């Protein structure tokens, strides 16, 4: 029996530039991706949502500050409140923070320089919908490429919401507590600065990003079955 391909929305904002890569990568790990324009008043019926990287609205004011008012974001908030898996990558992470779907904020890199390289990441939680295919403590290699990735969590941000950390000595942006990826308190919304969609084929350096996207696709598939039953 072939497994069902769950529908996963990839949002497209003016200035998104990793939307097609994300859709391609999701398709490579078993999803049926659907690009959804930011001005859509409703989120179509999907079982997962990805907010891709890029420079939505030119990063004006602060990264993600304007994108969070896009009409489609209301549907994303409802989907998240209903327990649906939502993954924000890079600019998508920034948008989720600005929208209040994730705690904290992303600031200009402490070095004030753009960084673009592969980074080793340590899996701090393997029990989320985004890391179920990973092993706890495993090191993943996934590239970053951003100018504003210094994660600043709120005071008393709990350890258990940290999903990925930059390996010791590898923090590319000054992120507090070496945080590379976090989840919300309910665990169904995740944001990370590294780009899993750029690491789904060993030919291009690493396939480790595929573990994250495939975990999301598993969660979306499960949701699609439970919705159907």
């Amino acid at each position, binding site marked *: 029996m072939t497994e069902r391909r769950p529908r996963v929305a990839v949002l497209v904002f003016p200035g998104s530039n990793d939307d097609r890569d994300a859709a391609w990568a999701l398709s490579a790990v078993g999803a049926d991706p659907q690009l959804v324009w930011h001005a859509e008043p409703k989120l179509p019926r999907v079982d997962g949502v990805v907010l891709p990287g890029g420079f939505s609205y030119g990063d004006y*004011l*602060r990264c993600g*500050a304007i994108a969070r008012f896009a009409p489609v974001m209301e549907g994303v908030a409802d989907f998240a409140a209903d327990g649906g898996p939502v993954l924000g990558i890079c600019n998508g992470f920034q948008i989720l923070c*600005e929208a209040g779907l994730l705690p*904290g*904020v992303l*600031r*200009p890199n*402490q*070095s*004030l320089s753009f960084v673009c390289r592969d980074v080793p990441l340590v899996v701090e939680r393997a029990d989320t919908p985004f890391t179920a295919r990973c092993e706890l403590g495993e090191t993943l290699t996934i590239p970053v490429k951003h100018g504003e990735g210094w994660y*600043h969590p*709120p005071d008393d941000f709990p350890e258990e919401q940290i999903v990925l950390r930059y390996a010791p000595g590898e923090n590319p942006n*000054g992120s507090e507590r070496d945080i590379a990826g976090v989840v919300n308190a309910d665990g169904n919304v995740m944001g990370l600065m590294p780009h899993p969609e750029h690491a789904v084929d060993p030919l291009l350096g690493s396939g480790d990003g595929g573990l994250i996207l495939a975990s999301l696709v598993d969660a979306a598939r499960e949701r699609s079955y439970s919705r159907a039953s």
Partner: protein
Amino acid sequence: MRATVLVRPKGGILDPQGEAVERSLRQLGFEVGEARVGRVIDLEVDASSADEARSQLERMCENLLANPLIESYEIELEEHSA
């Protein structure tokens, strides 16, 4: 009514941009202390009183112009617009 909103990195928040500006000024021979970099937003507010304008501006700051986690804001109103 004309208004100016000043947004600054909150006290205690590390400001690498400010540090870079401070270093550059010193290289130019200016003996400066700590520099911090924020942003200025000038705008026109449609309001019938200064109080109303101020309360609108506060909402603008809380919802969009500043991120309260890392930034503080200050509102200046040009009130003599009769």
